[in-house]
Structure formats: C-alpha cells, structure tokens
C-alpha cells in the first residue's frame, strides 16, 4: 500500500509524539506530578500508528489501560491529554478520567480502559452501530496478549464473526500479561491461530515495523469496510517499561529491554527504512523531533500551571439528566 510523503511524515510525527509523551510522563510520574496509576506504551508506537493511519474520526477504537499511544494516534489533542493526565479541569475529560480512562468521543476514541479485555465488546458495539447505520465505518479493538485470555474477548470475537461486523482486533503482543510472560499464560502457544479459529482472517506481524503493521491492518480494514466481517492482526511489539510506572520488573531480565531499545526501536527502524529508500529526508524528521519535544514541553508546563477541577465538579456529569 502506497503512502504519500505527507502520510509518512504524519506517521513519524505520531510515533515520535507517543515516544516523547511517554518518556516525559515517566519522568513526571517519578517526580510525583502525575497522580494515580499509569502504564506506558514505549516500544509499541508503531502499532497504534500503523492502525490509526487507516482510520477517520468516525471510525471508533476501544483502548486499554496502556492507552496514551492509541489516543495520540487517533488524533486526540496532546495538550488536552497532558492536562488530563495531570487531572486538571481543562483536560480532555476535565480531570475526571485520568490516564486509565482518557477518551475523546469526538475523535472516535472510546476510552482507555482500566479493565483488561473490556474494550473488545465495546468495539463490537461500535461495529454494530456502523453496520446498522450503514455508514461504512469500522471499529478497532486494541488489546494486549494478556487481554486475549479474557472471556470478554472470546465473546467479542465470536459475536463479531456471527454478526459479520466491521471490527478489527488489533492484538498487541508485548510479551507480558501484567507480570506474566506469554509463554506461560497462553495455553495454545500461538495467538494468531487461536484468533483465526474464531472464523476470521488473522495474521501476525512485527509490531516494531511500522510498514508491516500498516500493510496488514490495511488489508484487515479493507476486509471489514467491504462488509466481509471482522479481521485480526497480531502485532508483536515488546514493551520497554514495566506493567505500570514504578514496576520494578523483577519478573524480567532487564538486558532484554536494552536489546529491544537497540534492535527493535520502531522509530529507528522507520528512519532507516525511509532514508534508505530516499522517501524522507533526515532533516525533515529532525525538524519534527524538535517540534514534538517543544509541544510536549509546552504541554507539561501548561499542565503544571493549569487549575484543578472545582469542588462543584465532583457531582456533575454523572447522568445526562436525573
């Protein structure tokens, strides 16, 4: 699938924004400025980006507890996100969602989700709406390898096949379900074949290779948009951080992470891919790097300075009307 220079620059900017957003959140979390629990997406940037490059604002995604990357790739406002993670009143969700429940319905981002496996049935619902309304939209259920062991995901996959819904299951195999390795937690040993057994096309790609993700998801989206029903893409992209920030990762050989950063950095791989083929100039990407760092820095400054919610906000927006 061909991508214009503009697309490639957009993809690079998205991945870089996710990387720097998360790197900064790691620092801020350590400094104690970001409240609550947070789970970072570093290492998996090519997945959210390669998927969402195929989607419009009207296509919906359901996300996970590790949702910042999905948010950014789906086009959510970065400053609004930063304010939300700092739980400020002008954040995307007015400081009432925070990291694990950040959403922007107007962008088709149906929420990060603090319940593992809960997003898949919601994406099936969005697919059902698209099919019923006949508007040609698709939905994507992001979920990790850990989530695929939840009954909710099994139910969602089967129902999407039975009702022939335009849903793409983007399975992010990052090697661990919380603190437990996939070689232990996955009974069948192979996620893609288990997914295919539900009766949908399923492929496995290197999730640190933006182009591989983009190609495979492009096919899946085409399949779904043409009314053929759901499809799945397993993207293997190990996470660089712990399950949550502050996780000492005692369950993991830390040399693994060093090696990942050297050999499976999706940003490095993207740069090599596009410069070798002379599709993009290094200088253009360097310029994006600078802009992204500036945006993140400005967003953090704004977030620190921004006002928290007002006491009266505690009881608003429980119901539309009551």
């Amino acid at each position, binding site marked *: 699938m061909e991508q214009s220079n503009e697309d490639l620059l957009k993809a690079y900017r998205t991945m870089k924004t996710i990387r720097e957003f998360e790197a900064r959140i790691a620092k801020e979390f350590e400094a104690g400025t970001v409240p609550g629990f947070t789970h970072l997406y570093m290492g998996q940037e090519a997945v959210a980006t390669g998927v969402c490059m195929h989607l419009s604002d009207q296509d919906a995604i359901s996300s996970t507890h590790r949702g910042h990357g999905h948010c950014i790739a789906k086009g959510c406002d970065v400053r609004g996100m930063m304010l939300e993670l700092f739980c400020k009143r002008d954040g995307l969700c007015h400081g009432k969602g925070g990291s694990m429940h950040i*959403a922007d319905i107007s962008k088709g981002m149906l929420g990060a989700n603090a319940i593992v496996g809960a997003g898949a049935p919601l994406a099936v619902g969005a697919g*059902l709406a698209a099919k019923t309304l006949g508007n040609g939209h698709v939905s994507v259920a992001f979920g990790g390898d850990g989530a695929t062991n939840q009954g909710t995901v099994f*139910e969602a996959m*089967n129902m999407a096949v039975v009702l022939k819904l335009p849903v793409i299951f983007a399975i992010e195999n990052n090697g661990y379900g919380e603190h437990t390795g996939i070689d232990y937690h996955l009974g069948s040993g192979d996620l893609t074949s288990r997914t295919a057994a539900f009766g949908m096309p399923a492929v496995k790609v290197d999730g640190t290779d933006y182009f591989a993700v983009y190609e495979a998801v492009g096919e899946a989206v085409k399949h779904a948009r043409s009314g053929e029903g759901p499809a799945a893409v397993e993207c293997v992209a190990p996470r660089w951080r712990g399950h949550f920030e502050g996780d000492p990762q005692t369950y993991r050989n830390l040399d693994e992470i060093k090696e990942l950063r050297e050999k499976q950095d999706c940003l490095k791989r993207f740069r090599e891919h596009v410069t070798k083929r002379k599709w993009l100039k290094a200088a253009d990407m360097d310029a994006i790097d600078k802009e992204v760092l500036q945006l993140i820095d400005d967003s953090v400054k704004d977030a620190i300075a921004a006002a928290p919610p007002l006491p009266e906000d505690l009881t*608003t927006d*429980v119901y539309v009307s009551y």
Partner: protein
Amino acid sequence: MTTRTFREAINHALDLEMERDPTVILIGEDIVGGHGGSSNNPGAGGGIMGITGGLFQKYGASRVIDTPISESAIMGSAAGSALTGLRPVAEMMFADFLGVCFDQIFNQAAKFRYMFGGHARTPMVVRCMTGAGFGAAAQHSQALWPIFTHIPGLKVVLPSNPRDAKGLLITAIRDDDPVIFMEHKVMYDDEGEVPDESYAIPFGEANLTREGDDVTIVAFGRLVNFANQVADKLAGEISVEVVDPRTTSPLDTEVILESVAHTGRLVVVDEAYPLCSMASEALSTVALNELGSLKAPPKKITPPHTPVPASPVLEALYVPSPETIETAVREVMSV
C-alpha cells in the same frame, strides 16, 4: 384504552419506539429465535417469554438481533453502539445473568459520562426479568435492583403494572443514560388498562396507587400489588396509602416523605434481600428526614437473607405475602 397484559404492554412500547426511531435496536439471546438448527426458521421464537414476538418480522434482522450466549458481548455491544449512534435495548433474559457481565454495566456503561468529563452519552436499556414465584430457585429468581440502584450512572426501573410498564419503557428508550429495566416474571400475564397511544412516564415520580390517612406502605415492583390488596381489604378499618416509587434510581423521596408526614406510620416492602435493600433505603430516608412524624416504629418486610429456594413450600415462605404485609400494618397501627 385496551386491556393488555404486561407482556403485550412491553412489546407495544418496543414496537412504538422502533417505529418512531430507526436507531432503536433490540439485541439479545433468542429474541428472534429459530436461527439455524433443524428448522432454520428465524422469527420462530420471540424471547423465552415471548416479549419480542413479531418484532423481527416487522423490523428485520438488522434491528432485532439474536446473539450467541455471550452476555458480556451483548452488554458491551449495547454500550459501544450507544456511544456511537444507536439506542439499543439489550435483553438479558434473567436478571441473574447480569452477574456474567457486571463489568460492562457498572464499570463501563455506568461510568462513561463521568469518566469522560460529560462528553459521552450512553442511551441504552437493559431489559431483564426478576423475582421469585416460578420455582426457578437461586440462580433464576433474584430481585437484584438494589445492586444497580447502588451504582451512580445507572437508572433503575421497576414497573408494577402494564400501564406503567409501557410508559416507563418508552421513557427508558428515549433516555440518554443507561437504564436497567426490571420486569417481574410472575407478572407477564397480569392484565390492565393500557392507553393505545404512545406516552412517557417520567422517572423519579412515585405513584400513589392508594390514598389513605393512617399508614403508608412503600412497596416496590410486584409487591405494590400485594400492598394494594391489603389496602383494599382493610378499607373502612384502616386507611392505607400505598407509594409505588416506580423507579429506584432516581428515587422519589419527596413523595415518600410527604406520605409519611401525612400518615405518621410506615411499612416498607421489598422483594430484594434485606441488607442494603430498597426497604433499607426508604427507612433511612424517613429516619433522616421525617423521624419526628412517626407515631410508631416502622416495619421492614423483606425475604430472609437467604438465596431463593427451589421448594414451592419454602419459596412461598420466602416472598413477602399480602398476609405478612397486613400483619405489619396492624402492628404499626397498634402502637
């Protein structure tokens, strides 16, 4: 005005709303019936209680959707499609099965609006049947409305008669928040006068099903009818007022308090388990706001704190009866 059963009243409400609004869909297990199998005759069913009969024939497979036995996927589909442009009515068959998909209801649908800073609407209805009286025992007979009433973000409806069932369901479907609509399975064949036209009964507005001066009975769902029977039986001897809140969330505390202020005596009746029940809630509301009006200690009539038994003998003891309610009324009058 036509005499309709509770079942027909609900079917009529669904039909009217589906006709009015093309975004209203029905989704659930066996609500069409007959898909696949040896006959492969879709539409052969219409729900195990026949509530959705005829709607598949009228609105087709895109709006009356049979699902696999996958409660979480049903609830999630309802919640996800409500966020993205539909008004789903999900049928959960037995309310007890909500245990299989609690997460999608109380961590997902109920929370979207608040978590997302007021930017989400989740206009979904969950219909389910509740209550004891069928000998269906512990996993098919529960009165679980207090659990859902407890959760901010949900609305909970408990109709006590066919007329209310229709008007409240129409309101539920038009409502922009998630609504749990609980139908008592013993009442499906109950008949009542039901207006033919479409009408919406507002949530949070209790109905005084009997007016009286001596004692207030606050009852919920099916037991409103038992309270009415007691009021009618005691008429001329004790003047009983019956308050039917109709929705437990929002709860019309104003009418409960006004009634207690007027009568000075209170009996609360609920088929839910006694701990943290609606009976407890009504009592605490009165204790906090109208204690001075009480001329006698109030009475709380509920089942014992046990699961629902299978034995018809035990089940009859389990559900509060008109006789138990009458005894309680006489006791509060004797002080």
